[in-house]
């Protein structure tokens, strides 16, 4: 079978899984929905591998294949087909997405075992994977937008999965609204693309782009900036990042899959896919890179201050995606995508471990209340450490090779790109600190009460409540189930985490500078039209130098964290006291939420209120009621003529006759 057939199957299986779970939920026994969902994604993964194999069989120049099912829209010069593009970039992405999704599905089978909405969860999750794969495999811009919108919906549905929790539904709405802002950017970009290039299909689009646009021409910069709006909304970069921390209201596997490994990387994928346009608009690419840098540093600083475990990891995600954005914006496509892959591994792993820890804590997520789980949760703790090492770019892990490759490329480009490199290293240092902040808080120190209980063999239970606000809940549908699962007791969770742990450690070996460059070679057919990809090469020596600097910084960060949290644990307190204003600023996430509240929310609400009280009540109702009153008044007046007296009517007849006669006399005179 051809690669495109495999690609269609890759799309078909998750969709089928979603539909089976959605429509057959009454018929499915017990926890079968979970296995069906996981099986569907596993089949998708297998088909992705098959597509890879078939693609590799072809010569390098023939690795861009398209296939379409039928015409989706055809009008006024527009011809959009339901078509996919199978090329190295999309195959790479679908491998990463389906592989990590498969492991997360496996993890969820046990993690959400006691949840009443189990089947609904797997149906949504499969739908999400389908949408993400659709977005990646889309062969034209319109289908990409379709996939983009579906993914946004899936994210909303999964964030507000526990729909009776107010904080969850609010967070879901927030995510959706910000997503829509991105969608608007994308659709506007689509309009411009169609107007300038006349087509939505990728291959013709990218071929005609260099001829159609002069470098940095206004319209192509506009297109790229609009694409960036979409990408930043989806990937939670400044300033459209506020939804991601709140999205932690969803179940932990959802956070792992959507908000770490896959959906938030859609923006990075988009920029990589649209690189021919960005090559024509270097200004936009530079703006993108610097926003990525700003996000990177901002998120790392906030991650140092917040105390909710999942939110620390969320800010870490924002920060790491900043690295990826920098990578694909400056032309380090392979490096950026490499970091995407390794980040998927270790971030999903971190979330999974966090889920296990939160389960042991009976739902509490505040790391200041955690501690000393190394004896109670040995497996989880070790994998947490593995993930943190990869995040901190400890030498040898996948994160080490991927992150520093981006920064080396930035340094190679020279000029003001050095700012990116330096900023990236600063961020790496901060990353190592907060990564090990988590580790030292959760794993080391004196065991907290829940850990002690667990060492006794008894899993802690608590009254079901909202971890953010402390509101009382119950365990019926719409709220989390009563039983929490830890990895030590559920083999699917353990298996998934172990697989990711191995990937996080050894995944970096595909692209060791000077030794092998698997990804560079593989992705070359897609990116060879970019001069940045072709011409800029980091020499092995420079690469190892960059890696060395990064490694040193990582170790320094770990050491700092060790000092702050293990050796002298009262230091954070003292720092907080001394730099209180800075601390408050960081803990409140640089007041972005408050800023948006003041700039956007309040004015809109005021406008709405004004519209209601003035426009609606006074003007519209006034007009309507006024018309009614007027008609009624006229009716009352006319009613006076209906007296019922025959003689009055006769009088009117005679009077009318007299008037008519008068008229005719006047007219004829």
């Amino acid at each position: 079978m051809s690669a495109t057939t495999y690609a269609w199957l890759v799309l078909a299986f998750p969709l089928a899984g979603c539909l089976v779970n959605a429509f057959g939920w009454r018929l499915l026994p017990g926890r079968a929905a979970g296995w069906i969902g996981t099986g569907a994604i596993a089949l998708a993964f297998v088909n992705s591998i098959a597509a890879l194999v078939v693609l590799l069989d072809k010569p390098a120049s023939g690795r861009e294949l398209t296939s379409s099912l039928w015409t989706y829209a055809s009008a006024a010069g527009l011809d959009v087909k339901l078509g996919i593009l199978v090329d190295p970039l999309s195959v790479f992405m679908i491998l990463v997405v389906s592989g990590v999704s498969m492991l997360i599905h496996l993890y969820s089978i046990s993690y959400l075992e006691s949840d009443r909405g189990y089947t609904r969860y797997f149906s949504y999750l499969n739908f999400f994977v389908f949408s993400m794969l659709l977005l990646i495999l889309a062969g034209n811009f319109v289908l990409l937008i379709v996939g983009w919108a579906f993914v946004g919906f899936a994210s909303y549905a999964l964030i507000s999965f526990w729909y009776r929790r107010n904080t969850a539904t609010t967070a879901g709405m927030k995510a959706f609204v910000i997503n829509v802002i991105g969608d608007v950017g994308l659709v506007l970009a689509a309009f411009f693309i169609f107007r300038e290039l006349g087509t939505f299909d990728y291959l013709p689009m990218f071929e005609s782009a260099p001829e159609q646009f002069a470098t940095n021409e206004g319209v192509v910069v506009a297109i790229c900036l609009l694409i960036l709006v979409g990408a930043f909304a989806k990937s939670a970069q400044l300033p459209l990042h506020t939804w991601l921390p709140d999205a932690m209201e969803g179940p932990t596997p959802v956070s792992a899959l959507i908000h770490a490994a896959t959906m938030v990387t859609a923006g990075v994928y988009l920029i990589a896919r649209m690189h021919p346009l960005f090559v024509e608009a270097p200004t936009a690419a530079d703006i993108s890179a610097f926003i990525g840098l700003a996000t990177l540093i901002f998120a790392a600083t906030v991650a140092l201050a917040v105390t909710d475990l999942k939110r620390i990891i969320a800010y870490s995600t924002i920060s790491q995606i900043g690295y990826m954005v920098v990578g694909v914006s400056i032309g380090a496509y392979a490096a950026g995508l490499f970091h995407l892959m390794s980040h998927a591994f270790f971030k999903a792993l971190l979330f999974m471990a966090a889920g296990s820890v939160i389960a042991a804590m009976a739902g509490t997520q505040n790391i200041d209340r955690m501690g000393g789980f190394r004896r109670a949760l040995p497996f989880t703790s070790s994998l947490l450490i593995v993930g943190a090492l990869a995040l901190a770019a400890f030498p040898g892990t996948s994160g080490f090779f991927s992150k520093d490759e981006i920064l080396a490329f930035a340094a190679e480009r020279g000029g003001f790109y050095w700012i990116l490199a330096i900023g990236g290293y600063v961020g790496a240092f901060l990353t190592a600190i907060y990564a090990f902040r988590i580790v030292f808080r959760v794993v080391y120190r004196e065991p907290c009460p829940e850990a002690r209980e667990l060492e006794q063999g008894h899993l802690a239970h608590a009254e079901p409540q909202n971890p953010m606000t402390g509101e009382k809940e119950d365990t019926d549908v719409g709220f989390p189930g009563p039983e929490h699962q830890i990895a030590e007791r559920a083999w699917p969770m353990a298996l998934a985490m172990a697989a990711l742990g191995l990937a996080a450690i050894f995944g970096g070996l595909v692209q060791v500078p000077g030794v092998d460059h698997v990804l560079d070679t593989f992705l070359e057919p897609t990116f060879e039209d970019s001069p940045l990809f072709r011409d800029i090469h980091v020499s092995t020596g420079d690469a190892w130098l960059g890696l060395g600097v990064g490694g040193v910084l990582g170790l320094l960060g770990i050491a700092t964290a060790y000092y702050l949290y293990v050796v002298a644990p009262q230091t954070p307190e003292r720092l907080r006291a001394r730099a209180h204003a800075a601390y408050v600023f960081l803990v409140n996430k640089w007041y972005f939420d408050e800023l948006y509240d003041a700039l956007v929310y309040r004015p809109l609400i005021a406008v709405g209120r004004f519209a209601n009280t003035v426009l609606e009540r006074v003007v519209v109702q006034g007009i309507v009621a006024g018309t009614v009153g007027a008609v009624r008044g006229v009716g009352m007046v006319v009613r006076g003529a209906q007296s019922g007296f025959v003689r009055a009517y006769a009088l009117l007849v005679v009077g009318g006759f007299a008037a008519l006669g008068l008229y005719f006399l006047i007219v004829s005179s």
Partner: protein
Amino acid sequence: MDVTWYLVLSALLFAIGAAGVLIRRSPLVILLCLELMLNAGNLALVAFARDRGDQDGQVFALIVMVVAACEVVVGLGLIVAMFRRRLPLNVDEMRDLRG
């Protein structure tokens, strides 16, 4: 006499009849006033017949008389029926058409 005289007389009688219809309340008298108006019309018809030398007007007047007779029959029948039911013979009492 000029025909004009007859026509003016006819107009006068018509106006008097109309005033009567509007003023009187008894159905019987209203019917009488209707007769007045019809007869005024008859006079005008016959005057015009004389003026044109054409007898069609006189035939018309005869037919009007026939119609008037029929109308009187029906109207008086109504009055009798009303009287039999002890309904007040006053058109002002018949206000069912009131809006």
